[in-house]
């Protein structure tokens, strides 16, 4: 009969080995594959892709980023030289940092790509993350989106003029380092409007708070607000962040008309895709090429429109350019965010 202490030691050994085993089994995805990316004799002679590609989504399933990534993952294989699967892997946590971190550390062989939330991820980096967006291998942009600001019908403010005149505007956000929250913070700062920001669990909760009348104002990408503005009149749109009157929102003044056109540079949201730094050029070219074809696929466009977001894609060069300019532009807002956080 083993003694009690003997059993305890045995137990500890089993626990440890099981823990280590389960850790090892999961990590083996990207290892053990042949080095297909090293051949440099021009596109066409490199054997890529030879297996499935992992598409990391650094948020939980079910939101806009997850939805568009999954849509894209459905059409991307069609345009790859070999029709492997593009498999979405949700890696939520640390406000995007965990997923981006995993991408950053993955082998740059083209078998790991990731979706990015710009400018929110730019701010993450400036506030001290251990990756550098400027070094990622940019593949392209799925779409950008147009921000709309809306007031609750129960609010005492009815237009932007009202808000500027005085009183404190209560704004519903998720957090000030989220893209939408940051946009609202910057906009109100520029316009000199006093605001109090109430944090919420997610954008749905913030929007619901405005519908209920608990907050005065929310500012979100149009697809998130559409059902409350266009399909029903539960929120009143007061500004659209675009250079001219947008789509169905013919009565809504643009930010340019309100005199703050410069905010167009900072209040935006782009859905970019990239792989880890250092992917060989020929593999990257295959990815970029197939990506552009996929985002221009008529069925993909149709599905995105049905999801409420007609795609407005861009190339890898444009994506890299966006990153560069965003990093510069947001440097000066770093202090603003840190101040609000206290």
């Amino acid at each position, binding site marked *: 009969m083993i003694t009690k202490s003997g059993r305890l030691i045995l137990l500890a050994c089993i626990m440890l080995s099981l823990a280590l085993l389960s850790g090892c089994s999961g990590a083996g995805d990207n290892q053990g594959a042949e080095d297909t990316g090293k051949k440099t004799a021009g596109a066409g002679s490199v054997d890529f892709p030879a297996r499935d590609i992992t598409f990391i989504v650094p948020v939980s399933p079910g939101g806009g980023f997850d939805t568009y990534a*999954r849509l894209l993952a459905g059409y991307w294989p069609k345009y790859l030289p070999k029709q492997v699967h593009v498999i979405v892997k949700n890696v939520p946590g640390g406000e995007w940092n965990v997923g981006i971190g995993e991408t950053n550390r993955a082998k740059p062989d083209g078998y790991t790509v990731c979706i990015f939330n710009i400018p929110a991820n730019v701010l993450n980096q400036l506030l001290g993350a251990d990756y550098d967006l400027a070094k990622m291998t940019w593949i392209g942009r799925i779409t950008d989106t147009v921000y709309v600001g809306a007031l609750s019908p129960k609010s005492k403010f009815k237009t932007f003029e009202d808000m500027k005149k005085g009183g404190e505007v209560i704004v519903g956000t998720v957090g000030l380092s989220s893209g939408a929250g940051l946009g609202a913070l910057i906009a109100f700062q520029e316009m000199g409007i006093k605001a109090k920001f109430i944090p919420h669990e997610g954008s749905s909760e913030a929007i619901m708070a405005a519908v209920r009348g*608990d907050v005065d104002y929310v500012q979100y990408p149009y697809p998130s607000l559409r059902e409350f503005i266009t399909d029903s009149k539960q929120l009143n749109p007061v500004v659209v962040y675009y250079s001219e009157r947008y789509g169905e929102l013919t009565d809504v003044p643009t930010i340019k008309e309100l005199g703050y056109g410069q905010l167009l540079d900072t209040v935006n949201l782009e859905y970019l895709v990239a792989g880890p730094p250092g992917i060989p050029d020929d593999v990257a070219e295959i990815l970029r090429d197939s990506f552009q074809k996929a985002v221009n696929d008529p069925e993909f466009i149709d599905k995105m429109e049905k999801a409420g977001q007609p795609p407005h894609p861009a190339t890898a060069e444009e994506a890299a350019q966006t990153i560069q300019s965003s990093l510069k532009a947001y440097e000066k807002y770093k202090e603003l965010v840190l101040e609000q956080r206290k």
Partner: protein
Amino acid sequence: MLDVIQGLESFLAWPTPLFMALGVLLGMLFGFLPGLGGVQALALATPLTFGMLPNQAMAMLIGIMGAVPFGGSISAILINTPGTPQNAATTFDGYPLARQGKAGLALGASASASVLGAIVGALVLVALMPLGRQIVLAFSYPEYFMLAVMGLSVIAVVSQGSMWKGLAAGLFGLLICMIGYDPVTGAVRYTFGLDYLYDGIKLVPALIGLFAISEALELMLKNKSFGGDEKISSTGGLGEGIMSVFHNFWLFLRCSVLGFIVGVIPGVGGSVSNFVAYGHAVQTTTKNPHFGQGDIRGVIAPQSSDTAKDGGAMVPTIVFGIPGSVETAVLLGALILHGLQPGPKLMLEEPAIVYVMVYALVASNILAGLLGLFGAKYLARLTDMPSALLAPVIFSLAIMGAYATEGILGDVFVALVFGVLGYCMREFGFNRVPMVIALVLGAMLQQTYHQTIMSMGAQGFFVRPISLGLFAITVLMLIIPVIKNRRAREGGIPA
């Protein structure tokens, strides 16, 4: 009315029921395996539905969603590991029943509570749909706060007899749930510089540790035999288990309604409803209560609320496109991918599909229950296994489950630490339930408090009818037992 019939036709059109059945199998499996749950199953199945018609896709996805609570109860009852967080309360009495050789009784009760709870949820959903908007909008920050307070007061209810220990466990749970980044104040608490702790201690690994691993530890260290001394092939209890729901009909009904209400409130889901229902059962049972030692009502209450909550969660999902629970969040994504925009438009333009979803919710539970009952004979045999064999199996399942949640090794360590913690708590007579409740509700408590104060001031809690009502219920829940005790003592009757 026509829509109801059209919905039924769409639902029964082959191969839609087949897809639902596939969903049920998937949901039961994922529900049963600790660490995996409805969310993972739904996320996995969504791309599979791409080629399907919207009706078929919804039938499959809801088939998954409906079967998960019952699937999770199987592991809760047989191996003291909640298959999903919403089955945590089922372990409190389900597992003791299994240990007494009455696994069949517990499984039968769980099956019928789940099926009937789903039916109640579906009926209330259809009945309340026109009022859905008002109901969802009536819940704001103060109401969420009072709900969290009410949930926390369940701690007092289940700690009767050892109030100080219960409070200690509960407060410790609050402490643990403070770990991580706080979005309200921007503070980063107790992370010790570790990235992993930035998001705090996650519920699933903690539950796995507290219940499954601590159980395996106990089995291994105490060398107890598992199924009690009577090795009954416990399926005899099945029929009795099924009927027990009818014997406790009013409790079942109240818990279903409770589950539905909690489901309607966006963002609050199964992990809250099962505790609230369990607490309610403890609070309102007068006839021979023996909760924690195999009281069948402790299985009926959480399970019926779990499935009813799915019906409730559909309200904000369909009416607003706002997820009522984690599972419905994924469901929403799938709806959008199929070109269906939830919200006011959906009810107007495609009402039939809403009814397809309702039918699928009920049918999936019926199918899951039937499958479970037929398999119960073999499942219950698990409890006949000697603990020397069972403990390592539980152990391995638990650790793999903790890892399977998100593929992070840190989760495994959390599970192990909580496993040791759970074992110690049992050794020293601390109830784990208060700690779990606090862990689940602490974050909501803090955030909603700040939200209320920031937007409405302290009066916000007391000038709104629902908030005030919840507060009053909570106070009553706490005071009534005290009054009862005092009266009984004065009358010379032992409490």
